[in-house]
């Protein structure tokens, strides 16, 4: 009968901890901290289109470049139209996001998007990302959270680095096109905490006639103490890279045989980037509340030389231009969550979160005409100080086992201070915007949850546009643009695990923008476009067949229209329509693992009247891993396995080749890389 003797002890113990109150920490802890710890997301997210990709999901992806990790967010496409060191071009939810407008990305609480950037608003260069350190990617689509600010209307991707690694790692990758990469990382214990270190060296020439010659050095050093919910970290990062660019080329040049598919036009295009940061975060969590504080200083430097139109503007020197950008970004943000109310029976409870975000950017950038990287004229040169502050309040309430709501409000204030080389384009501007959000989650059945989301979001415009009175190129008068542009989104969603081993989400959304504003980085001015409206539907499915095999199918379709009555047509150039992904993942099948992923990037209108459209691009990537020993494995990755000759990206605009009498409107494309293999050897200890 000895087993029974446990009972009174435990029962007595248990009674000590009965407070007769609601299961307090459950709600806060799960929402704020343990979110993502469960595979089944019912009751864990506020919309059907949000979710988490964990370290294993990310490890199983074949990524040609680090920015492609974001494609773990269903419906997102990360592409490249230039040299590898340049920020990727993103597509999501009917947007051509350029280099990151309307897609907010953060790494360890640091914003990646650079506002008022020389080349493109919201510039998102993820080349400093070391995939081995990424512990999770949390994503949200649509402007439904008051915790998200600038650029988050199409979506938000938050990447987190680990504080400690399960084991130190050393890896070497060799691939075609002179690709080589090595990573060394570990997290030894030090003074009661952990010291995470990582060093990455990479070189890649790509398939280009003029090799990219991309070289990068990337390092991370972090000291962490305690746990991520009760502890602190201090992190230093440094990245630098330089490259030659093979920019998009005109289709007519390839068709006439004047240019090869992988040829470049201007052999001196390229750039150099440096990013250094120091950041810290501190978190304290108890059963009753959770507090987080985060601070960072980031220094970014970019030199970028591009030539998209060849000899259109300057038949003698060519159209190459330089867009240097040097900036220091500083920021502090914090939040506090506490129980606002809990009923006696614990069925009804409500948490309140209050937070703030402050950010300052001190920017020196410019636009210059160059020839072979030598400056020949200055279009503009500016010193921008852009400062923003935001406060938000969000209340999450669990009304019953089956009904939850999140209501929030956010107030944003921006200050744009531009000291330009022309007095007419200098000055100060301010803008304020208040945005509400609402999410309702209702689970009529234990395995199915329905969502209704409504919210406003925004993006800021380039500071230079907010004080502009003169086009620096043509010297024509221009109107200043507003600083902040509002978006309004709504969404109906469903998440279900009704079919065993399968999780399905469906969302149907609408997103309106007050004006589709794009900064024409290549021309040096801001264009205030018409309002826009998007409708879309997204489906995502994961089927875990057994312990080692999972299948997934994601598909998205969006209809994007401009609403200003433009006589040319109402299409939005580059706006993505259909996107699909199908994947098969094998993990832990004896010593074998692997993945096969088919990606479909559907056709896009390239001009307003839809008379010119891009073709679809379909790529099949895969990897096979084999574990030689407990702490040693090899992996073969293959990209574009079917060796398709599709475009990574297409544009339609006017350019002029040296031998042409005048400019010609044409499709300009950047090809996807041909079939490429890379072999990796990984050692842990």
């Amino acid at each position, binding site marked *: 009968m000895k087993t029974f003797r446990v009972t009174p002890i435990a029962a007595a113990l248990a009674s000590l901890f009965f407070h*007769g109150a609601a*299961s307090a920490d459950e709600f806060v802890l799960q929402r704020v901290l343990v979110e*993502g710890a469960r595979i089944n997301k019912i009751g864990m997210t506020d919309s059907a289109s949000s979710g988490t990709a964990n370290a294993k999901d990310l490890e199983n992806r074949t990524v040609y470049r680090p920015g492609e990790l974001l494609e773990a967010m269903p419906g997102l496409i990360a592409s490249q139209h230039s040299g590898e060191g340049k920020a990727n071009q993103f597509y999501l939810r009917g947007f051509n996001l350029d280099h990151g407008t309307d897609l907010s990305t953060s790494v360890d609480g640091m914003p990646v998007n650079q506002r008022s950037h020389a080349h493109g608003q919201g510039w998102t260069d993820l080349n400093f990302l070391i995939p081995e350190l990424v512990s999770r990617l949390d994503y949200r689509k649509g402007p439904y959270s008051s915790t998200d600010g600038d650029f988050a209307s199409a979506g938000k991707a938050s990447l987190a680095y*680990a504080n400690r690694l399960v084991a130190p790692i050393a890896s070497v990758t060799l691939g075609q096109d002179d690709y080589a990469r090595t990573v060394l990382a570990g997290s030894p214990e030090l003074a009661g905490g952990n010291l995470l270190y990582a060093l990455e060296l990479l070189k890649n020439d790509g398939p280009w006639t003029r090799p990219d010659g991309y070289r990068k050095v990337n390092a991370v050093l972090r000291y962490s103490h305690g746990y*991520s919910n009760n502890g602190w970290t201090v992190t230093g990062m440094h990245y630098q890279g330089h490259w030659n660019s093979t920019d998009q080329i005109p289709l007519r040049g390839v068709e006439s045989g004047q240019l090869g598919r992988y040829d470049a036009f201007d052999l001196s295009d390229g750039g150099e980037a440096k990013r250094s940061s120091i950041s810290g975060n501190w978190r304290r969590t108890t059963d009753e509340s959770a507090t987080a504080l985060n601070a960072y200083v980031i220094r970014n430097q970019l030199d970028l030389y591009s030539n998209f139109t060849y000899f259109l503007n300057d038949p003698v020197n060519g159209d190459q231009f330089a867009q240097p950008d040097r900036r220091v970004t500083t920021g502090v943000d914090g939040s506090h969550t506490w129980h606002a109310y809990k009923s006696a029976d614990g069925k009804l409870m409500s948490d309140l979160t209050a937070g703030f975000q402050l950010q300052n950017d001190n920017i020196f950038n410019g636009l210059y005409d160059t020839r072979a990287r030598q400056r020949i004229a200055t279009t503009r040169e500016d010193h921008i100080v852009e400062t923003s502050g935001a406060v938000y309040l969000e209340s999450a309430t669990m009304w019953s086992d089956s009904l939850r709501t999140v209501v929030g409000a956010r107030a944003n204030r921006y200050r744009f201070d531009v000291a330009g080389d022309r007095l007419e384009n200098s000055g100060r501007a301010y803008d304020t915007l208040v945005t509400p959000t609402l999410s309702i989650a209702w689970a009529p059945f234990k395995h199915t949850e329905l969502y209704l989301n409504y919210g406003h979001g925004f993006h800021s415009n380039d500071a230079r546009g907010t004080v502009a009175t003169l086009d620096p190129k043509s010297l024509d008068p221009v109107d200043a643009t507003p600083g902040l542009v509002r978006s309004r989104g709504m969404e109906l969603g469903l998440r279900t695990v009704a079919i065993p081993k399968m999780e399905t989400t469906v969302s149907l959304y609408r997103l309106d923008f007050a004006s589709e504003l794009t900064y024409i980085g290549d021309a040096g001015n801001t264009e205030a476009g018409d309002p826009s409206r998007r409708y879309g539907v997204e489906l995502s499915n994961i089927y875990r067949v057994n312990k080692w095999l999972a299948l997934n199918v994601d598909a998205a379709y969006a209809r994007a229209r401009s609403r200003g009555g433009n006589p040319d047509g109402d299409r939005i150039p580059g706006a993505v329509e259909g996107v699909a992904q199908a994947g098969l993942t094998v993990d832990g099948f004896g010593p074998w693992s692997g993945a096969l992923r088919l990606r479909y990037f559907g056709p896009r209108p390239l001009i307003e009247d839809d008379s010119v459209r891009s073709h679809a691009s379909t790529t099949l990537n895969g990897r096979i891993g084999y574990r030689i020993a407990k702490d040693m494995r090899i992996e073969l990755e293959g990209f574009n396995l079917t060796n398709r000759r599709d475009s990574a990206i297409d544009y339609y605009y006017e350019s002029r080749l040296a031998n042409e009498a005048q400019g010609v409107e044409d499709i300009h494309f950047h090809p996807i890389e041909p079939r490429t293999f890379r072999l990796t050897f990984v050692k842990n200890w």
Partner: protein
Amino acid sequence: MMVRLNLKALLACALLCVSAAAGAHRFHMGITEVAYNARTKSTEIVHTYMAHDVEALMLNMYQRQFDLTDPDDQLVFRKYVEERFALKGADGKRLPLRWVGMTADSQSVTIYQELENAPLSKTVGIRHAILTDFLPDQVNTVNLNEAGKIRSLTFTLNAAEQPTARAIQQQRAQ
């Protein structure tokens, strides 16, 4: 051996779950049974913790999800347990515990360890710091079962190491 151990584990687990469900406030506790098995002549140890607590611990240590039914992930948790739980001999040194295995389901995590060819009396002290610094209100109860006679020790953040001599005899259940 596993059958008998499992029965006990099941009970401890049922207890943890029932208390948690009935309760309201989620208290944090673990139960460790230490018993001598005359048949194998070994001291057997069975720990039971709430799956939710262990999941949260691992997530906040490594910032990623763990699947405690996966052998690789188990290895990481094993390292944590072996660092923080030890039986100590008369000389104050750690006694060599053998890792027998662990099981995990959605409710609880159960760990099996063994001190081979050793009577209970060989254990003079116990160090138990599992979950206590992660969850400050975590209480770990160690039941020392000697031929049906049970004595208990309670370990918390501020009482991580205790001599077995301090163990208190529990009342007999009816």
